[in-house]
């Protein structure tokens, strides 16, 4: 009897997490399907004061990387994993949310150009673009899963660090296959 009572909430939490993963996977697949089905517009979009849209995208992705590193540090601080800094002050939580939201906003024009103008590259032979396409779609899927995990009070305790870690890893992979490639090809120019 006792075993059943303790097992049920745990199972329910795991099912809830599975639901969040499925929702994220659905978003990732939908992004990939759109990128594949939609005829690439091959047009420049937003570039602000940068030379081209690709310059803008490279720097925007770098800015997102900085924000996501701040996210990671904030999360570690809140969960007491930065013992040298002591307990996290009250403002760390809201700032963590703010930097995450900012990162999402900055990513939107980047993803828009990727999906609308360039499309999904399904050719594994075109290695960098193929992997970048996969990482990009997976990133938004992981983002949705992370938001669902953060918002729910009934998720397993291990869910958030795992999803956060996946999201961070995907962003690093995205930066390596886009901004770093661009800077190495064309130099660190604005």
């Amino acid at each position: 009897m006792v075993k059943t009572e303790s097992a049920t909430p745990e199972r329910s939490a795991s099912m809830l997490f599975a639901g969040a993963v499925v929702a994220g996977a659905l978003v990732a697949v939908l992004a990939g399907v759109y990128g594949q089905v939609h005829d690439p517009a091959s047009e420049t979009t937003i570039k602000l004061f940068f030379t081209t849209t690709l310059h803008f995208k490279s720097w925007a992705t770098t800015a997102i990387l900085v924000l996501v590193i701040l996210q990671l540090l904030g999360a570690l601080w809140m969960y007491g994993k930065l013992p040298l800094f002591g307990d996290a002050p009250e403002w760390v939580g809201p700032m963590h949310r703010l930097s995450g939201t900012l990162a999402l906003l900055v990513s939107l024009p980047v993803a828009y150009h990727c999906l609308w103008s360039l499309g999904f590259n399904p050719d594994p032979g075109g290695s960098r673009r193929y992997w970048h396409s996969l990482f990009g779609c997976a990133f938004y899927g992981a983002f949705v899963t992370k938001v669902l995990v953060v918002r729910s009070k009934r998720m397993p305790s291990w869910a958030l660090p795992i999803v956060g870690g996946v999201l961070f890893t995907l962003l690093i992979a995205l930066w390596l296959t886009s901004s770093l490639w661009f800077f190495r090809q064309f130099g660190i120019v604005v």
Partner: protein
Amino acid sequence: MLRRFVSWFEMAALLVVAVFIGMLFLNDPTAPPGTPAAVVEAAGGIDGGALYGKSCAGCHGGDGSGGIGPRLAGTMVKKFPDAAAQIAVVTDGRRGMPAFGTRLSPEEIAAIVEYTRTVLGG
């Protein structure tokens, strides 16, 4: 105070996300100039415009206005008075531009070059 601001900011961000998703479906791209029948015929029936859209537009823009690659519209004849020189660049590549000689036939490259020199305004 900060928490309330962050909550409003998140709501606004959700709206922006919705706008971007809408734009993915509602924003019609500017149609690249089609290849006139005479140009297609002169290129042995190969549609240089369609090939341009697949192989070149991603870097040079659908209308040749440039992107990561330089502007082509209105510049090619002046830059390459001899079309053979432009064909050589497309075939062998140059600086950041990949060589298309291994991906496209000489006839296809010639059709693309003709398209950039005529339809895109030379």
